[in-house]
C-alpha cells in the first residue's frame, strides 16, 4: 500500500536514530562537563562530603597568582608554537618528497607514520631510555663522535627537559601531518600542473601557485589539530619528566591532574581543566566550521 507520508511523521525518525548517540553524549560528556564546571566554582577536595562556594576565585588565582599555572600555560604555548611549525612543516616536506614515484615509497611512508600508532607511555619510556645520562643512545653517540662535552642529562636539566620531550613528540607527530598532506597532494588534479607548465611555470612557482592553495584545507586540519592537541598534552610529559625537574615541564594537562588527584584540590583542578577546554574550543571553531560545511 503506498501513500504519501505526511511530513509531520517523518520528522521523528532521524531523532530516533540519533537518540543513542545524543543520549550518550549528554550523559557522559555534557553532564560531566557541566558538573565539572560547578566543581570548579567550589573548593571541593574530591573526597569530603561538603564544599564551599568560591565563585570564580579558582580561575583568577590560577591565571593571575599561581606561578605554576602560569608556567604551565607558557609551556603549552611553547609546545603549541613548536607543534605549529616543526612537525607540520616536516610533514609537508616529507609528503612532497614522497609524492613522487620513488622506490619503496609505501615502506617509507609506513616507517614515518609508525610511531603514531604506539601508546605514548611506550614512546615516553623508549625515549627516556634514549636520553638516559649514563646509558642512553644519544649521549653515547655524542661521545662517539667526539662531541662528548654536549652529553648531559637531557631530561634533568631545566633548559633541555621540555625541548627533549618535544623532540619525542616530533618523532611521533610528523607521520600524521605527512599523511594528511600526502592525501591532499594526491588529490590535486594533474591538469592544473599541465596548464601551468604550458604557461611556462617551473618547480618553485608550481609549488607556490598550484600546490599550496590546494593544501589550504589540509592546513586547517593539521594546524587546528596541532593546537588542540598541544593543549591536551599529558602522556609524554607524565611519563618522561613527571613535570620535572622542579616543576619546569608542567603543562596544563598534567598540572590539572596533580591538583585534582594528588593535592586534593578537585575544585582548583577542575578550573584548570576548564581553562584548557575554553582554549581548545575557541581554537576549534574555524576547524569545526570548515568540517561541517557542505
Amino acid at each position, binding site marked *: 500500500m503506498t501513500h504519501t*507520508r505526511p511530513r509531520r*511523521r517523518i520528522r*521523528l*525518525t532521524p531523532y*530516533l*536514530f540519533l*537518540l*543513542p548517540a545524543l*543520549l*550518550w553524549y549528554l*550523559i*557522559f560528556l555534557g553532564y560531566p562537563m557541566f558538573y565539572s564546571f560547578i566543581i570548579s566554582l567550589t573548593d571541593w*577536595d*574530591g*573526597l*569530603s562530603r561538603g564544599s564551599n562556594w568560591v565563585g570564580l576565585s579558582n580561575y583568577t588565582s590560577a591565571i593571575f597568582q599561581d606561578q605554576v599555572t602560569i608556567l604551565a600555560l607558557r609551556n603549552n604555548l611553547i609546545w603549541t608554537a613548536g607543534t605549529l611549525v616543526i612537525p607540520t612543516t616536516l610533514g609537508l616536506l616529507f609528503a612532497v618528497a614522497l609524492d613522487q614515484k620513488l622506490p619503496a615509497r609505501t615502506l617509507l611512508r609506513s616507517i614515518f607514520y609508525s610511531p603514531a600508532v604506539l601508546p605514548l607511555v611506550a614512546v615516553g619510556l623508549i625515549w627516556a631510555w634514549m636520553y638516559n*645520562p*649514563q646509558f642512553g643512545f644519544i649521549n653515547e653517540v655524542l661521545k662517539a663522535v667526539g662531541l662528548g662535552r654536549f652529553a*648531559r*642529562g637531557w*631530561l*634533568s*636539566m*631545566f633548559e633541555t*627537559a621540555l625541548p627533549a620531550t618535544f623532540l619525542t613528540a616530533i618523532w611521533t607527530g610528523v607521520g600524521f601531518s605527512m599523511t594528511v598532506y600526502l592525501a591532499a597532494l594526491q588529490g590535486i588534479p594533474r591538469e592544473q600542473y599541465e596548464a601551468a607548465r604550458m604557461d611556462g611555470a617551473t618547480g618553485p612557482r608550481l609549488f607556490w601557485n598550484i600546490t599550496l592553495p590546494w593544501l589550504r584545507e589540509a592546513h586547517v586540519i593539521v594546524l587546528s589539530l596541532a593546537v588542540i592537541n598541544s593543549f591536551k598534552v599529558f602522556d609524554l610529559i607524565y611519563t618522561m*619528566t*613527571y613535570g*620535572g*625537574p*622542579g*616543576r619546569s615541564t608542567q603543562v596544563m594537562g598534567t598540572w590539572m591532574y*596533580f591538583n585534582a*588527584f*594528588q*593535592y*586534593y*584540590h578537585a575544585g582548583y583542578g577542575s578550573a584548570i581543566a576548564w581553562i584548557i577546554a575554553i582554549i581548545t574550543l575557541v581554537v576549534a571553531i574555524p576547524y569545526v566550521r570548515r568540517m561541517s560545511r557542505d
Partner: protein
Amino acid sequence: MNRNTTIRTFAIASIATLLAACAGMPGAPSAAPAQPNAPAATAAAPAAADATTAPVASGEKITLRIASIWDATSMEQMQPVLDDYMKQNPNIQIAVDNTAGSGAAVYPDVLKTALASGNPPDAFFMWGGEIAGPFIDADQVLNLNDFYKQYGWDKVYGPWTLDRISRNGSKFGVPYTAHGMGFWYNKDNFAKWGVEVPKTFAEQEAMCEKLKGQNVYCVSIGGKFGWHTMRILDYFIEHQCGPDKHDQLNALTLSWADPCVVASYQSFQKWVDNGWVVPDFLTVSPDDSRFPFFKGDAALVLEGDWYESVLKNNEQDNKKYNFYLPPTDQTPLRFSTFPEQFMISKDGKHPNETAAFLNWLTSPETAKKFPTAFASSATIGANPDCNEWPLTCGLRKEVLDAKSTYPPTDQAFQKELMDGFFEVQDNIVAKKLTPEEGANLMQQRVDEWKAKNKK
C-alpha cells in the same frame, strides 16, 4: 515493516542503550569476573596468567585486599609469608595490589583513586607522618585505638614509631617497619682512597674534597622524584639548624626564610658546585644511584637499613660495606628515621579479620619465622639472623634504640607542599635560584599552602 515497527525498534534500542549505559557493561560476553568488587590478583606469582576471582563472602571465605609497594624481589619474600597465613587460616584469601618503584611519588595517588572510587583495599601500606595525613583527615581510615587495647600493640612496637603514626592523640596505623638512614660506604674503597669515616661535618667535607682530587664523587643521588635529594638536604638542615629548629621547620612554626635554611641550601649548592655530587642527577631514578656507587665512581649513598638486601640482590659482597651516621656536629646526634605502617580502610568490609592479619604479620613469632622478609620490622625483638645480615642488625640497633630522631621532610609535609619543597631544591641545584631566593620561595610556598588548605 511499517512506521510503527521502526519507532518501536528505535525506542527499544535507545532504552537498551540507556540501560546498558546505566549498567556499564552492555551485556557483552566477557571473561571478566562477575564480581567486579573483589578481584583477587596476586601480583607476583610467576605463573599469574590470569587473575582469578576468589569466591566472595558467601559463607566463610573472605578475601582481604592489601595494597602495597612491594617490588618483584620483595614479593618473592612476602609470598611465602602470605601463603603461610592462608594455610593457617584457610577461609582467608590474601590478595596484594602493588605499585612499585617510585616510592612515595606514585603509590599515594593510586591509593587515593582507589579510596575515592569507593572500592578501597582492606589494608594498605603507608609511610608515617604527614604522608598519611590526608587519609586520616579525609576520614578514610579506621581509628585503631580499640585494636591497640585488644592486641596490646603499645608494647609491641618501637616507641618513636608509635609517635609517628599517631595523630591528634589517636593511633591510625600498625607500625610495620622502622627505618633509619646513614651513609653507606665500601670499606675497601675507603682504604684505597685513604679516607676514614668522618666524625665532624668539617671532616666530612674534607673527605669529599680529598675524594674529588682522586676523581671520585662523594655522594651518589637519584633525584628523579625529589625524595632522594631531600635526604641530603635534610642532613644539611639538621647540621645547620640544629634539632629544635629543624623540628620547628617541619611543624611550620619557624619561617623557612631563616638564615639557617639559607645556609643549608648554600651547603647543598656548595656540594654540587664542588663536584662532590654525581653530575646530572636530577632525573636519575633513585634506584640508578647505586650504579656509580657499586662501580666505585662515588663513595657514599644516603640509604637505609634495607640497603644490605639491595647489596645482596645486586651481587655485591656485603662484607665489604659498612655505614655510618652522618656527622651533624649537634647534640644529640640525630639521624633520619621513619616508620612504615599498615592502615585499615574505613570502608573496608572486614576490619576485624584485617586487624587480626596485621597482628599476625607484625608479631615477633612471624618475624622469626621469616627473617629476611621482616628485616626492618618495627616490632621489638624481631631481628634477622645477624650473621647473615650484620649491617642490617647494626643499623637496626641504632634505629630502635634511638631516643631522638628526625623524620625525612616528605613525612612532615603533604604532597602539595612537598612538591614545592622539591621545586625549590631542584631549582637551587640547577642554579635557577640562589639559596636566599630559594629559602624565600620555600616560605612563600609554605604560606600559600597554609592559605589554600586553611591550616
